[in-house]
């Protein structure tokens, strides 16, 4: 599958665009390199010193030329900027209707967890033609998920969630690499993304069924960590606020500001509950820092997300079974 061409496989909806920009900049680069080399070589030969005593006429300079060769590069550079920024925005604009996969990097392996419960290490199975959003964090140092064939890359930073998404266009097996130096076995922290036809993917999913989904695991943690003592057995609320429908909603804080409850907010609410207090509640929730691993945290986040039906991304999801989390939570939970 690896061609001899000095270009990696192009296998995502983005890769063609990135290649186009890449070749455009190469065009400009080669043009200017040739221009300058040819002119320099021509001058050097044409005006070589023929007589050891010759003194050429001094030439002062030219405002016209200076303007010309500042403005032209500037205009060209602006095209690089606009094009690059447009694609970048598209790349980082959160995906709608995406399959979500939770990713935890740790020295030196990758763990993937599908919403349906499948867990994989250093291998990621995805269907062709669907957006896949990676929600990523790390248990130790900074890592980075880099899939050359998809032209995507994003650091995985300790202490927060970062995301990236792709939509594969060609079935196949593609390398992915950890692209942020992370210590001894950095170069071993790689694996494969296996892109499958949708039916094949369904088979793969069902062949690996029977594992607890993140939301279900999160549900169990919700009990075992004692969250229910305040948030209620079904997260319907108690001493703490109800968590039904929190995800994706605007939460009003006690200083009258408000935040949108995304994964990062939920994460912070669990690890550093005092940082943003929900209006009407005291600072009684203890921090769970150190009592919960990053993976468990992602499970709890998945559980709390499953309590919300107004998930903006899945609001218009076509009923692809792979995208519907088979939650262990009460499906009857109604958002407040």
């Amino acid at each position, binding site marked *: 599958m690896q061609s001899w061409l000095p270009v990696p496989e192009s296998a995502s909806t983005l890769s063609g665009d990135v290649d186009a920009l890449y070749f455009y900049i190469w065009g400009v680069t080669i043009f200017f390199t040739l221009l300058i080399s040819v002119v320099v070589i021509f001058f050097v030969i044409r005006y070589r010193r023929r007589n050891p005593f010759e003194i050429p006429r001094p030439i002062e300079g030219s405002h016209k030329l200076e303007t010309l060769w500042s403005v032209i590069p500037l205009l060209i550079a602006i095209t690089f900027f606009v094009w690059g920024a447009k694609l970048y925005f598209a790349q980082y604009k*959160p995906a709608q209707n995406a399959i979500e996969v939770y990713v935890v990097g740790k020295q030196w392996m990758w763990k993937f967890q599908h919403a349906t419960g499948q867990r994989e290490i250093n291998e990621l199975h995805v269907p062709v033609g669907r957006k896949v959003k990676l929600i990523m964090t790390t248990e130790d140092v900074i890592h980075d998920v880099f899939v050359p064939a998809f032209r995507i890359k994003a650091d995985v930073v300790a202490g927060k969630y970062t995301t990236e998404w792709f939509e594969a266009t060609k079935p196949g097996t593609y390398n992915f690499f950890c692209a942020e130096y992370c210590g001894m076995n950095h170069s071993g922290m790689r694996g494969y993304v296996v892109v499958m036809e949708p039916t094949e993917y369904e088979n793969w999913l069902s062949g690996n069924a029977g594992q607890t989904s993140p939301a279900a695991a999160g549900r169990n943690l919700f009990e075992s960590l004692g969250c229910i003592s305040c948030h209620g057995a079904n997260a319907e609320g108690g001493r703490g606020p109800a968590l039904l429908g929190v995800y994706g909603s605007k939460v009003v804080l006690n200083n009258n500001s408000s*935040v949108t409850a*995304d994964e*990062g907010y939920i994460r912070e609410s669990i690890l550093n509950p005092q940082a943003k207090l929900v209006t009407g509640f005291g600072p009684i929730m203890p921090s769970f820092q150190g009592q919960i691993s990053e993976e468990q945290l992602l499970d709890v986040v998945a559980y709390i997300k499953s309590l919300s039906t107004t998930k903006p991304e899945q609001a218009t999801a076509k009923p692809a079974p792979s995208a519907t989390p088979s939650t262990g939570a009460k499906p009857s939970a109604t958002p407040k």
Partner: protein
Amino acid sequence: MSEHIVQPRVYLMIFLALMAGTGLTVVAAFYDFPGPLNAVVALTIAVIKATLVVLYFMHVRYSGRLIWLVIGSAIFWLAIMFALTISDYWTRTWFVPM
């Protein structure tokens, strides 16, 4: 040589102003001004005090353009560092990954 000698009387007045500023900032700290004004008040007083020290104790008021330029560039570069770094932190939440 174009050295300017600042008179002791000027030093004394600056000194008194600095002491007054210190007192003022301590008192002001116990009042609750609305919004971000607490920090604004404290920092304004600090900036005024620092300016007095620079202008008089450090003789910059009587120094040439070059010294002004040197100080100006320090402030300018500090501003770059703050502004561009904060531009990152400031805009991080604009893009809610939902």
